[in-house]
């Protein structure tokens, strides 16, 4: 199959080359005035120069609408920080709420739409503190990328729904994100330090995380464990 594709490609390329040779030869014989060629060329160059200036201006104007570019070693381990009570950047916090609940709290995360980390406190009372952290989406382009683009701010999120005896993580809205990524030629970047020899890319995403602080006086009703899923998505911090 590969050999067939190769032969097809080289044949098509050869035919294309032959056609261009014929057209170029015959265009010279056509009685088009030299001044017409010169005018076409001059107009083309002027248009390209205008495009250069407009392109630079447009990039400057629209550049600050682009997603933030962050180094890979800047990635934050949110789960680890919650478990170990480490400070968490404000930018990751989506919502901080408190809820009054009854004797029991039923937690539903049927479709595993978030990671729920539950911390128990010795406090009396029935006030549950909730901190919802944003899901993350990042992508990088090219081989050996050391930075990634952070698209997290573009994700739509449905917050957990609370009643006085339950918390439900709803099915999250569908997020279809499309981006166009323009980079300079792969061929000509050999002296610029921007060398990209492929169109490869990678992306990562992280769930929405919910940190609950629940008094021990509230009885928890957690979803039934199914294999590893329970421990992965709804976890009581020891």
């Amino acid at each position, binding site marked *: 199959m590969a050999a067939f594709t190769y032969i097809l490609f080289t044949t098509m390329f050869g035919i294309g080359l032959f056609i261009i040779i014929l*057209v170029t030869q015959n265009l010279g014989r056509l009685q088009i005035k030299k001044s017409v060629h*010169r005018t076409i060329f001059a107009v083309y160059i002027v248009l390209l120069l205008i*495009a250069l200036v407009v392109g630079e201006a447009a990039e400057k104007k*629209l550049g600050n609408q682009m997603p933030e570019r962050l180094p890979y070693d800047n990635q934050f381990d949110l789960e680890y920080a919650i478990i170990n009570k480490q400070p968490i950047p404000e930018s990751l916090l989506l919502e901080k709420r408190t809820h009054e609940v009854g004797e029991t709290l039923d937690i539903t995360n049927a479709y*595993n*739409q978030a990671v729920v980390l539950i911390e128990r406190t010795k406090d009396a009372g029935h006030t549950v503190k909730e901190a919802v952290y944003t899901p993350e*989406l990042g992508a990088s382009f090219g081989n050996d990328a050391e930075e990634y683009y952070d698209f997290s701010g573009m994700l739509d999120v449905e917050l957990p729904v609370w009643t006085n005896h339950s918390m439900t993580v709803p099915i*999250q809205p569908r997020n279809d994100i499309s981006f166009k990524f323009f980079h300079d030629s792969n061929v000509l970047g050999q*002296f610029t330090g921007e060398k990209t020899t492929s169109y490869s*890319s990678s992306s990562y995403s992280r769930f929405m995380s919910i940190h609950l602080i629940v008094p021990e006086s509230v009885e928890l009703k957690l979803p039934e464990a199914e294999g590893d899923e329970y421990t992965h998505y709804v976890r009581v911090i020891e």
Partner: protein
Amino acid sequence: MFSTRWSAAEWAKRQYLFKMNANASMFTILIVLQIIGTIFISGASVTSTHSSEDYIPITFNFTTVSYDGQIGMTLFWAFVVGFLLTSAAQRNESFVFVTNRLTFQLANFYFICTAAVIGSITTVLLGSVMKIIILLSGNAIVETSGLFASPSDFFSRVAAMTGYTLLVLLLGYLAGTLIQWSKWFIVLFAALWFGMPSSAILVGGEYGFTPLSFFFNETSLILFILKVILASVLLFGISFFVTNRLEVRQ
């Protein structure tokens, strides 16, 4: 008898100006090819989709766009132009001048250098057109330094493109010269075209060293220019040597 005596350089210059006029259509073809490349190839774009794991409904589509397609079109054009410069029609046109092999070849070399510079500048400038198209389509990321942000990068791209275009022009010129010398070269080139694996020429193939990697893996601009000059002298020298062996008006 002539009342004015011109040097070989002056004759070559006049022939060069004549060639620029006579071959103006070649530059119109370049413009057409570059426009076709911009409209239809979309600058060698690749679309990828990433869907997140488990049950989180995130789909991330992105298209990477460059102007490698336009570069391909320009190099394609360069080969054709180099090839056509050796055609019988081109050589016969030169006989309207008092000419010899040296001035004829020099004029061709000047023309080739001019074509390389024009081809490279227009191609690199086309990058701005692609940038505007991408920015206007919305949700765009431009990850390249432009002329104002990094002039040295911009001009190094022009230099690289000039080097590659010059080499391809001279390759076409050499191929045309060899075919003029002996039609058996058509068979040889056809055999090479279909028989030689692309990995023997391109970068990153199974062969460690390839003709393209000799230039492409060079990260020093000065060394790259030296390599291009050396290769140009070699390619043009062979063409010059072969043309000198051709009969007049052959």
